[in-house]
């Protein structure tokens, strides 16, 4: 007989902000004038994120995505595009590193500057099999910035 933690923490995972972004993703749609593109795909569950960035000089002027998937992957993509829009490329990369450190490596977010609105994505850390949902769009961001100009 084994006992597992209760389901009280479902609310930690599915916070209102996350549910809201999941239902009505921001920056969803095509970006024909994009300079950088990348796709994220999770073969385990079929989640898909196609990310498009418009980079001018050092700055991410515009970020949009398309795709489909669970609430977490869609909310994460939505919030990621909000977070990087208008930021420098360097800052976007830093954001990836910080997000990755907190969500994947489980580093305490309090030790660093906090993730701001992205905080609501960190509940996923209690759900090892959902972490990839949260990071999918972020890996696409990294790939897009590392890739050739489209």
């Amino acid at each position: 007989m084994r006992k597992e933690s209760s389901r009280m923490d479902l609310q930690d995972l599915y916070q209102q902000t996350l549910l809201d972004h999941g239902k009505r993703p921001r920056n969803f749609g095509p970006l024909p004038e994009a300079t950088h593109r990348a796709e994220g795909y999770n073969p385990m569950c079929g989640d898909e994120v196609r990310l498009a960035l418009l980079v001018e000089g050092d700055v991410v002027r515009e970020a949009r995505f398309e795709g489909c998937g669970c609430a977490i992957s869609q909310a994460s993509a939505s919030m990621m595009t909000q977070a990087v829009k208008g930021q420098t490329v360097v800052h976007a990369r830093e954001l990836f590193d910080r997000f990755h450190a907190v969500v994947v490596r489980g580093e305490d977010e309090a030790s660093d500057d906090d993730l701001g609105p992205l905080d609501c994505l960190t509940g996923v850390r209690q759900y090892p099999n959902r972490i990839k949902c949260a990071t999918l769009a972020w890996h696409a961001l990294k790939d897009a910035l590392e890739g050739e100009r489209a």
Partner: protein
Amino acid sequence: MSKLRSQIDVRLEFPALAQEVSGRPLAYLDSAASTQKPNAVLAAMERFYREDNANVHRGVHTLSQRATDAFEAARRTVARFVNAQSEREVVFTKGCTEAINLVAASWGGANLGPGDRVLVSHMEHHADIVPWQLIAQRTGATVEPFPITDSGEVDLASLEAMLAAGRVKLVGVKHVCNALGTVNPVAEIARLAHAHGALVLADGAQALAHVPVDVQALGVDFYAMSAHKVYGPMGVGALYGRAELLEAMPPYQGGGDMIRTVSFEGTTFNDPPNRFEPGTPNVAGAIGFGAALDWVRAVGLGAIAAHESALTAYSSSRLAEVPGLRVVGTAPERIGVFSFVMDAAHPHDVGTVLDRHGVAVRTGHHCCMPLMRRLGVPATTRISLAAYSNEADVDAAVEALHGVRALFT
């Protein structure tokens, strides 16, 4: 003994079911992914390792003889369970996937050429598609899907037309669909295929635990099985192949026991089934497989099917209570498998919420991406039943599904 009483007894034989997950009694509704194992199966394997453990076939000593006897007895058990003509028609494999790969590599490698066609249904499992794609790439053959209907049944008329177009060498089809629960008309498919000179491989992964399997009555040429889907252990399965086909097939992999003589000038090969079983087999696994089939036989496949059928009806009506839930796959001939989508939430989120209610289900494409595309769903949540499933499991799932709606709407 009342039916309910015996059902309670059956459940008690599965130790893994007696646990809590997320503070609730586990409702294990993922049996199509892997069934739980009864004590009888665990005990048979444990006994082997504690008393008889030795390599088979090669030893003159007592333990090796006992191991060989037990291994070959398991082979006979499998052969009898599916009504093969002889145990020499049963090859032990790592699982259903390997059984199909064996046929594709050995039979396909020797018999497919440019322009030859392999037909598999549009609802096939990746294990029924990809092995053929790999060998087709090597041989110049093509792999084509034959259509299914919106309700999730094979379209026999289209299959026949595709067969009539010629050059079909083999038809592959799941006996029972892991994603939808459809029981396919394998005997009818075999009749059509044979009329056009094609062989038939049926994938029995989901059938063995739920419907009677008689390879001779079905008229199939090959039949693939996994022990872990029928209350047996992981890491073992079997291929049934008609004797004269196996006889004529070249080796699949090389190693000990599959040879007659080895030399650098030229190696000769053993007879089937040994020809296809190189190296040390999973002896304990085969014994566990045999014990699992013995268990099914003892409980009675008829009694199990009746129980599952009643619970399938119950599940159907309970799931219909959940607003915004749509079951995909509505074939009349089906087993206790429900794939569904919900307006409120993506399957992956459904799965997580259910897990936190102690309900274990599968979500995703169920290794059937072409089927998902065909049905126009990115993924589904799947509930699957087995002999030990009961109404409380289904009730827990339905309660949790209401919880999903509450959370997401």
